[in-house]
C-alpha cells in the first residue's frame, strides 16, 4: 500500500531529474511555465478567500440555527463532491458560453467568462466550495451558540462577537478547510479543462500545462511541473497532519 503511494511520487521526481538540474531549470524558465504557475496562484488567490468567507457563513448558518431548508442547504454544499468535475466545468460553458443562457448578453457587453480567467475561477470555486464548510459544520454544531450568546448578553456587537469568540473557536478547523480548498484549487483538472480553451500562456493552469507538455513529448517539462504540484501536495500533507492535531486537541479541550 505504501509502495502504491510512494512509487508514483518517486517516478515523478526521477523523471523530472532524468536529464539533470539544467533541464529542470530550463523547463521552469519557459514563459509558458511561468504563466501557468502565475495563473494557478491567481486562481487560488481569488478562490480560496472567497470560499473561506462563504464557507464560514454557510457553516455558521447550518451549525448555529434551525431553519426550514437546513438539510437541503447541507446537501447543496456537498453537491460539488458528488458531481463529476467535467460536469462542474460544463455547466459554466452552458451558462456563459456563446450559445449559453447569458452568453449572447455577455458577448454584447464584451465580457469574457468561459475560456478566460473568470471561467477558471468559477469552475474552481464550484469544485472547491465544500471544503471549508464541511470542516467547520461538525465543529460549530458541537460547540453550540452558548459562548456567542454570552458575548452578546455582555454587550458585544455582532462583528466583535465573531472576531473575539467565533473565529478563535474555529480557527484551526478553518485553516484546515482553507488548506484542503487551496490544494484542490491548484490541482483541479477536469472542471478547468472544460472551461479553459487550452490557450498556451493564457488559460493553462499547472495541471493543464502538464497535460499539454506531455502531449508535446516534453517529458522533462511535464514531470518538472508535475513535481512542483507534488511538492504542493506534500506540503499540504505536512500542514494537514499538524492541523489535525490542533483541531483534535481543540475539540478535546472543548469537550
Amino acid at each position, binding site marked *: 500500500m505504501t509502495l502504491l503511494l510512494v512509487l508514483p511520487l518517486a517516478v515523478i521526481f526521477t523523471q523530472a531529474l532524468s536529464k539533470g538540474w539544467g533541464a529542470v531549470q530550463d523547463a521552469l524558465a519557459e514563459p509558458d511555465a511561468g504563466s501557468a504557475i502565475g495563473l494557478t496562484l491567481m486562481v487560488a488567490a*481569488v478562490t480560496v*478567500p472567497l470560499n473561506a468567507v462563504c464557507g464560514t457563513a454557510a457553516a455558521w448558518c447550518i451549525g448555529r440555527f434551525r431553519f426550514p431548508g437546513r438539510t437541503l442547504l447541507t446537501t447543496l454544499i456537498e453537491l460539488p463532491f458528488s458531481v463529476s468535475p467535467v460536469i462542474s466545468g460544463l455547466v459554466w460553458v452552458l451558462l456563459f458560453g*456563446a*450559445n449559453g443562457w447569458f452568453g449572447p448578453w455577455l*458577448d454584447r457587453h464584451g465580457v469574457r467568462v468561459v475560456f478566460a480567467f473568470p471561467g477558471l475561477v468559477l469552475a474552481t470555486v464550484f469544485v472547491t466550495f465544500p471544503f471549508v464548510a464541511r470542516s467547520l459544520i461538525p465543529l460549530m454544531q458541537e460547540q453550540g451558540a452558548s459562548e456567542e450568546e454570552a458575548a452578546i448578553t455582555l454587550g458585544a456587537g455582532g462583528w466583535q462577537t465573531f472576531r473575539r469568540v467565533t473565529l478563535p473557536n474555529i480557527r484551526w478547523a478553518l485553516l484546515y478547510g482553507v488548506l484542503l480548498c487551496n490544494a484542490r484549487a491548484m490541482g483541479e483538472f477536469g472542471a478547468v479543462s472544460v472551461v479553459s480553451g*487550452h490557450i498556451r500562456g493564457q488559460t493553462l493552469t499547472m495541471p493543464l500545462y502538464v497535460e499539454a507538455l506531455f*502531449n508535446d513529448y516534453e517529458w522533462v517539462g511535464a514531470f518538472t511541473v508535475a513535481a512542483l504540484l507534488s511538492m504542493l501536495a506534500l506540503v*499540504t500533507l505536512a500542514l494537514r497532519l499538524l492541523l489535525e492535531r490542533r483541531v483534535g486537541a481543540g475539540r478535546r479541550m472543548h469537550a
Partner: protein
Amino acid sequence: MPHSALTRRGAIGALLGTLAVTPAVAATTLLNVSYDPTRELYRDINRAFIAAWKAKTGDVVTINQSHGGSGAQARAVLDGLQADVVTLALAADIDALAQRGLLAADWQSRLPDNAAPFTSTIVFLVRKGNPKQIHDWPDLLKPGVQVITPNPKTSGGARWNVLGALAWARRQPGATDASAEDYLRALFHQVPVLDTGARGATTSFAQRGLGDVLLAWENEAFLARKEFGDADFEIVLPSVSILAEPPVAVVDSVVDKRDTRTVAEAYLHFLYTPEGQEIGARNFYRPRDPAVAARYAETFPQLTLATIQDFGGWAKAQPAYFADGGLFDRIFMPGK
C-alpha cells in the same frame, strides 16, 4: 499554503493589471485554434511569421496556440473561444462554424487548394520488425491485432482513418456499402481504447505501449519516429489511403470584432509561401508548392489516394458517417 495578505494583494493587483492592459495589446495578438498534431508545425510557423510580419510592417504580433481534438476544438470555438484563425483537421469542423454564422459560407474558396495549404494521408505505424505482419487494411482484422485510433466523434484524424478504411473496403471486388460497413465494424472490434485526439492516441501507442498498430496521420507517424526513435517503429503504407486536406480559415466574426483581419489573413497566406511550405514539409506535412514538393519527393512516396469527393464531400460524409445515428454509431458499441 495560506496566502499572506501581501501576496494576495499582489495577485489581485496583477489581475487588475492584466484586465487593464488587455485591450491595448489585443490588436496585435492572434489566437490560432488548431487540432492535435500541429503543435510542432505551428511553433515553427509562428516563429517565422512573427519575424516576416515584423520585417514587413514593423509591427510585433503575438500568436497564441490552442490544441486539441479537431471536433472538440470546433465545439469550443462555437461556445465562444475567441479564435482569430482556425486550422482544423477537416472541412466539416469549419463548416459547422460557418453554419452558425461565425464565418462566411464560402470560406473554403477564399484560399487556394480548398483552403488546405498542406495535405497528409493516413498510414500505419507498427512496432519494430512489424511482428504482426501488418501490410494492408485486411491485416488489421487478424486475430489478436489491436488497433489504436482516436475517437472519430472528437478527432479529425480519426475521421480520416475511417474514410481511409472505407476507401479500401469500397475498392474490393464485389464491394457494397454493406460490405464496407462490415469491414469497419470488424476493424473497430480490434480497437481497445479511443483517445479524444490524435496526439493522445500516439502517446497511447508509442509511450504507453498499447496496441500493435496505430492508424495515424502521416505527419504524426513521422514525428513519432523522430521523437521515440526510428529504431522502435516502422511506417507501413497501405495499398489505398485517403487524401487528407486539413483546412484553415479566418473566423470573420472574431477578426471583425477584434480588428485583426489584416494580420490574420496575412498569417494564413504565409502558409502558402515557399517559406511556409518548406516549414510544413520539414514537419512532415505534404506541401502543395510543386518546387518544395519536388525537394521532399523522397520523404513523401506516391500512394493511391481516395479523396473526400469520392464520399460526396464533407457536407455528405459528415452526417452520413459521423453525426449522431450515422455509420459510426451503428458499427461501434463501446465495451464490446
